[in-house]
């Protein structure tokens, strides 16, 4: 009985630690509970799609896919085009997704191919890959657009005549998904359509795990060699997992940006990778195991911390600037903490595994 409790504690140590930190910080920050709940509802609705897109690569043993940045960039390219062409409303969202789809698929194939060549180092490779493709994205968006790629909407072009502006107002699609069906629960506004879409993704993930492809990915995630000898096309399936993740990320970024209403052309996608991974890690996922509760719970925990820490820092120290830096420190520190705790957990598991085997061997008789 006691062992079971201990096991639950160890398995969920990360979210528990973070939760304790948050509970301590809420009173310091002075933020009201109502405000926090409403913030969490909006943040859940706009971030879930992105964070959920991280699950499938983890299942396939690719680790935490920092490469969702590639998907975010694809989504942003789609949004740049529909803003240029002035397509509004749901049609705008639909067209943006349609345009970013082939881009996301191509980037996903590229990403998967690169990661296949860096087996064993997928996570750090995907971080660098994100930086690299960001450079290519800049090349296209800052130099190509308005130049080689014809743009008609002068408003989004820089004053020098080519290149997209730093910030684009997405007013034609602002809050289109969120406002279409709105639910009022007490004092809170819930963007129902968006929540439905997120729910659909969750169902998709659950269903996908049961399909043959999903099972193949599970097998590869557990042991590549065994999967190979079982006849699974390991290389191809790994690439497929990244493609799916990248496509989901591009849609997720579009959902995210329609909620915010403005796109920071050169920045919006950068933080997305870090924050989404931070969220899922805080929710208790590891590089080898990630589930839907990890994603959703993690978003709530991470964003609570994200919203509370600058205020708490400001109340404690008196400077908003320091509060900002404090938030950055907490965000990265928490990821480091989560990774350390996971590694420690793995060590514990390995130790108990080895102890079990040793016990078995010792009691199993003479050598």
């Amino acid at each position, binding site marked *: 009985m006691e062992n079971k409790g201990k096991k639950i504690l160890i398995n969920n140590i990360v979210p528990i630690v973070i939760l304790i930190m948050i509970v301590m910080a809420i009173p310091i920050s002075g933020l009201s509970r109502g405000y926090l709940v409403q913030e969490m509802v909006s943040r859940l609705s706009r971030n879930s799609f992105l964070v959920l897109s991280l699950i499938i690569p983890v299942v396939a043993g690719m*680790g935490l896919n920092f490469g969702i940045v590639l998907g975010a960039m694809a989504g942003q390219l789609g949004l740049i085009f529909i803003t240029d062409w002035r397509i509004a409303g749901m049609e705008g969202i639909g067209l943006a997704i349609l345009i970013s789809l082939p881009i996301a698929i191509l980037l996903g194939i590229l990403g998967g191919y*690169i990661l296949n*060549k*860096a*087996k*064993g*180092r*997928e*996570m*750090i*490779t995907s*971080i*660098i*890959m994100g*930086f*690299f493709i*960001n*450079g*290519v994205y*800049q*090349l296209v968006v*800052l*130099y190509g657009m308005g130049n080689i790629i014809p743009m008609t909407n002068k408003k989004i072009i820089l004053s020098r005549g080519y290149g997209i502006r730093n910030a684009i107002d997405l007013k034609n699609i602002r809050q289109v998904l969120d406002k279409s069906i709105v639910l009022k629960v007490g004092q809170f506004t819930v963007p129902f359509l968006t929540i439905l879409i997120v729910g659909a993704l969750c169902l998709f993930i659950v269903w996908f795990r049961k399909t043959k492809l999903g099972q193949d990915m599970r097998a590869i995630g557990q042991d590549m060699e065994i999967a190979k000898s079982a006849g699974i096309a390991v290389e191809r399936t790994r690439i497929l997992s990244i493609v799916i993740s990248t496509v989901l990320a591009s849609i997720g970024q579009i959902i995210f940006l329609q909620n915010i209403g403005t796109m920071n052309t050169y920045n919006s996608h950068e933080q997305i990778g870090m924050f989404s991974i931070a969220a899922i890690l805080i929710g208790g996922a590891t*590089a080898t195991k990630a589930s839907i509760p990890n994603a959703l719970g993690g978003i709530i925990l991470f964003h609570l911390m994200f919203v509370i820490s600058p205020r708490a820092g400001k109340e404690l*120290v008196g*400077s908003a*600037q*320091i509060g900002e*830096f*404090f938030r*950055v*420190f907490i965000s*990265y*520190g928490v*990821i*480091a903490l989560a*990774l*350390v705790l*996971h*590694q*420690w957990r*793995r*060590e514990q598991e390995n130790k108990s595994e080895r102890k079990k085997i040793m016990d078995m061997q010792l009691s199993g008789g003479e050598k």
Partner: protein
Amino acid sequence: MEKIKSYIETMGWPRIIIALFLLSMYVIAPFVGLNLGTSLSDTLIRFGMNAVLVLSLMPMIYSGTGLNFGLPLGVEAGLIGAVISVEMGLTGVLGFWGAIIMAVPFAFIFGWGYSQILNRVKGGEMMIATYVGFSSVAIMCIMWLILPFKSQDMIWAYGGSGLRTTISIENYWQGALNKIFPMADKIPFGEIIFFGFLAFLMWGFFKTKSGLAMKAVGANPKFALATGVNIDKVRTKSVIMSTMLAAIGIIVYQQSFGFIQLYLAPFYMAFPAIAAILIGGASVNKATVINVMVGTFLFQGILTMTPSVINNLVKTDMSETLRIIISNGMILYALTRKGGKKNGK
């Protein structure tokens, strides 16, 4: 024919391709209006700036603690030393060495703390190192704002508090290393000699008993354990060494660059250094001084030449974007080569 083939294999195709690429840049340079002499001297100057930072990666690679993505931690220690030196008003060579002497104790403490974390996460060092590095930059940002520095050259004008983002050391110890040598602004003899000195120390160290123990811990931990080596202690030593070298490295960088850059500047500093050493032929657990020298030269060379050449070709300034593509492209290239023990994610 066979000899050439085996030579190529030892060198590794990636290095040869990059070397040829760099060579072609130098060849093209005059044709697009760039002065060859200036280009070469620019490359050498950047070599001098960055070599020690790249060198700092060596100890941790050998001890199996992975590529030091937590380099920013050592850089922060170096920054502390640098600002203290300026605060004290030290100039010239005294300022330079003063900065190093102040930085070393901080580097030692930071390195020690860092090693304690890394020792508990064997197998996943690189990822955690990255985030420890990021967090340390963020916390130092807070520090730069609240630490009680008074020097007029460093704090915000108009009675602000906290240090400025960029501090000019033109009047302090810029160029301190190269001043006594000829052609100070063309060929950085001082920096090269300083680097050579440190590199020689490194080379010597790895021939000593401790150095060999460090190599053993990285190459074959079980064997090392069997010969009575305390793995954690050796790893700690390597992390402290790397952190101290990184602190020295950033001070060398600053005296060449002429500015101390605080706040978010050290954030991504690990990546170019790692790119350089990987290009030089190092792997996740093996790096020689030759790797450091060749790698820094190739990497900085390409980083200097390619944007300039392309800018002149296309008549647009795309330096920043090109740098991102090139440096990360090179790291990717190096990461996707076969070989090197599976060293965790």
